[in-house]
């Protein structure tokens, strides 16, 4: 592998690159899915390859191949150079990178139990036990559970002298029950929607979920939702559970603080951002309670790593401090444009993609509102929503609408009527400005989000969001005709 890396960098240098980096990546993934008591899917996927990124006369070129041979390194380096020269046909000024010093280092995700060493039988038993518990609940049409394991081994090197080897290990799992009648379909997931919880770490994280223990209540809620009344429409105080706060952070803080979006380089696909750089250190993003950090060092976070794919070390940087915008997610190309050095957010999905600015773990600091039950008790009238099932936000990340799996009306500090299809909508800074309570550290969870899409060609990002339940005053809920 060292031969290929050296040859790729030598070729790029020889052919005229002012800067080049190469990543060699091998990714393995195993997934088991049980559906209605049967093993629906069992897969073992492996993909390996390398990508070369070059700067020629201030313009970028990139090419990637699955053929891990030194001669292919020559061919791909030349192709990247040719592509960079074509980029030069439409340039405004040279790309300039920050002065991050090159590093030689290794990083490995800490874990106790290697997820690839756990037998299929063991994984299957966990899923079948949960399935059996869900099956005991009458009225459940579809029962599903999955566990996933991932390993990415990658080497990064650059003509500036960086050489970094990393091994990132991921584990996750979850269950979901679906109830159906003629006009309705209702779902309940544990511990979160869209595959459950995923972390960087070992299989101990999956065992800790205790899927079987939570299976019956998960199934019972799905069935109960079928006959629950529709979520009312109007403005009311809204309490979100930590999973929904996590997605709210993702869409309305994580994405708009990506500095490439702010500069317009994602405009044709994902959109732009209302958080333009003239607002840095001045914009009132949320209430005084709202402080949000980008922490790539958080133990277990799905956005935790040693170095990003430009060789920049993982960091913990504030984005919002006591409600004021104070930072952005940056890369080596974007950070100097606001007079800063990269805080290490440039990551690529696979060997065949270029690094883009991606969220790390974007975490809302916990507050002092105690437990979720304390917060509900402190709320005279309102609604509590739990676990996302629908999300949409405009291209500047202002107007959003979310739908959750379940809602409960709150009357006089008590959780009362269950309601189905709860939705809420708002405008980002007004919404965060209405946040008047955040639960404490005991309610705070670092959720993994393994399906963040960005870029062309589309890349999937694995990111994390730490959140506790929070309350927002006077929010529009129950959107649309039902």
């Amino acid at each position: 592998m060292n031969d290929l890396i050296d040859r790729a960098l030598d070729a790029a240098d020889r052919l005229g690159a002012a800067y080049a980096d190469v990543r060699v990546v091998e990714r393995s993934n195993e997934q088991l899915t049980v559906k209605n008591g049967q093993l629906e899917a069992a897969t073992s996927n492996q993909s390996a390859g390398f990508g070369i990124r070059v700067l020629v006369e201030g313009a970028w070129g990139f090419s990637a191949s699955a053929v891990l041979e030194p001669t292919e390194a020559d061919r791909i380096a030349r192709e990247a150079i040719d592509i960079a020269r074509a980029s030069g046909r439409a340039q405004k000024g040279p790309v300039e990178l920050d002065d991050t010093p090159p590093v030689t280092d290794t990083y490995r995700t800490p874990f106790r139990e290697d997820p690839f060493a756990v037998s299929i039988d063991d994984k299957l038993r966990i899923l079948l036990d949960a399935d059996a518990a869900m099956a005991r609940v009458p009225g459940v049409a579809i029962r599903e559970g999955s566990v996933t394991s991932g390993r990415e081994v990658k080497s990064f090197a650059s003509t500036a002298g960086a050489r970094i080897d990393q091994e990132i290990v991921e584990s996750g799992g979850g269950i979901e029950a679906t109830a159906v009648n003629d006009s309705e379909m209702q779902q309940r997931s544990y511990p979160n929607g869209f595959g459950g919880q995923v972390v960087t770490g070992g299989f101990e994280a999956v065992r800790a979920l205790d899927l079987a223990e939570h299976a019956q209540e998960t199934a019972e809620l799905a069935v109960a939702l079928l006959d629950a009344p529709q979520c009312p429409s109007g403005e009311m105080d809204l309490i979100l559970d930590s999973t929904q706060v996590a997605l709210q952070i993702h869409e309305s803080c994580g994405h708009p603080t990506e500095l490439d979006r702010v500069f317009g380089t994602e405009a044709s696909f994902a959109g732009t951002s209302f958080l333009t750089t003239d607002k840095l250190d001045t914009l009132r993003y949320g209430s005084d309670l709202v402080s949000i950090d980008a922490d790539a060092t958080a133990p277990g976070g799905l956005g935790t790593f040693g170095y990003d794919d430009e060789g920049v070390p993982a960091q913990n940087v504030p984005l919002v401090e006591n409600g004021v915008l104070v930072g952005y997610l940056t890369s080596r190309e974007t950070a100097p444009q606001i007079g800063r050095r990269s805080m290490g957010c440039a990551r690529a999905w696979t060997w065949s993609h270029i690094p883009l600015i991606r969220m790390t773990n974007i975490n809302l600091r916990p507050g002092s509102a105690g437990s979720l039950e304390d917060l509900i008790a402190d709320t005279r009238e309102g609604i509590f929503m739990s676990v996302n099932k629908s999300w949409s936000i405009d291209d500047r990340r202002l107007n959003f609408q979310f739908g959750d799996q379940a809602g409960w009306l709150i009357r006089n500090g008590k959780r009362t009527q269950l309601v189905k299809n709860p939705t809420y909508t708002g405008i980002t800074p007004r919404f965060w400005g209405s946040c008047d309570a955040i639960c404490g550290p005991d309610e705070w969870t670092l959720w993994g989000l393994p399906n963040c899409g960005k870029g062309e060609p589309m890349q999937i990002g694995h990111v994390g969001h730490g959140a506790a339940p929070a309350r927002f005053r006077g929010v529009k809920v129950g959107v649309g005709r039902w």
Partner: protein
Amino acid sequence: MVATLDEIDALLDRALSHSTARQTEALVLAQDLALTRFATNRIHQNVREHDATLQVRVIDADRIGVASTNKLDEAGIRDVVERATAIAERSAPNPRAAVMPEPDGRTHDPDLGHVSATADASPDVRAEGARAVIAAGEAKGLESSGSFSTSEMTIAVANSLGIRARHRSTKAALLTVMMDGFASGAASGYAHAGSPDVAAIDAEALGAEAAEKGDHMRGAGELEPGEYEVILEEYAVAGLLEYLSYIGFSGLAHEEGRSFMDLGARLMGETVSIWDDGADPAGMPSPIDFEGVARRRVDLIEHGVAKAVVHDAATGSRAGTGSTGHGLPAPNLLGPMALNLFMAPGATPRDELITSVKRGIWVTRFHYLNPVHPKKAILTGMTKDGTFLITDGRLSRPLLNFRFTQSIPEAFSDVRAAGRETKLLPGEFFGAARTPALHLGSFNFTGVTATEGGE
């Protein structure tokens, strides 16, 4: 290309020969993708990717194992077969999913939709396309963003029951968003085109379309959300069709009661017909599926009535229809997918759709669509890059973007007119759709984006 066609054939043979399972399927997906991306009037990302993946599915005593690799040497092939076999041996039997298709005697054109000029397109071709778009935007004082991609894809499948199928295709796609800043009310225009043939992409015309739209969007103002008549351009219609396919045209979603497709029931207006046809050269052809089955034309909505859903081998077996040729790579938790959508055009010239609208909204495209309630086919999303108030049959002023929350079958139940012309558009996430523009009697806009800053 990472693997030639002969090498792909040899890969399939070797994978099948290494397996001792009762049934084995080998699938090769080879892709050579190049994409030139531009923003703020410059090329800022420019990439190429060469990859080929071998996926092996084995079935033995109703036990299924699937593994994949892109290490395509002898050791890699043996390893992927061994991993799939090891998974199957440790798996529990699942007879409802353990179905592999058999040959049905239908043939297809293995090169339908393959154009050498697209496969061979250089980065200079894409850069010149980007320059043409940027120039069109500059002429109207707009900054251009977008992407110009050219790709070649080969799908090859063989299984031990006798399936042997291969198809290679090309795709060229150019899209642009043109703006004069990111503030609320800033100008914003859009255009998008796709074809198997890169020569069919007219970058200058596409740039001019987006620039004109963007120029007309200057100074957008608010309008109270609510129910309005709408003209949906082809871009907007194609986005809705892509999501209807995702949430409801699948045989698995129908089997599980998750789909809005109540077969035999009238769901939409009399003039609405939607079908899927992977072998129609007027689309983005993909005449075989990922199980090697020739795609059949499936009439999904016929004159407003739900007629059929699409199937892969497993759902088709359970439904008693057999596969319609809509399988995705195994194991497929999503179920079969309609990827080559068509909507019937109407008789009204596209430019005359607006003339009968007294007061309504013109929608160029939608952004960030997502299902709110799949079984009712309620979607939400934002308008984008060209939203106008229509007054007395004319565009009267540009509008800030709306959010809608709307059942799409309900909206398609009141189609006042459909455009005579159609556009072929690559999907945002998958497939392609050829659709007309539509005039709908009512569409429910439930919110509006904020003015600058949103504070």
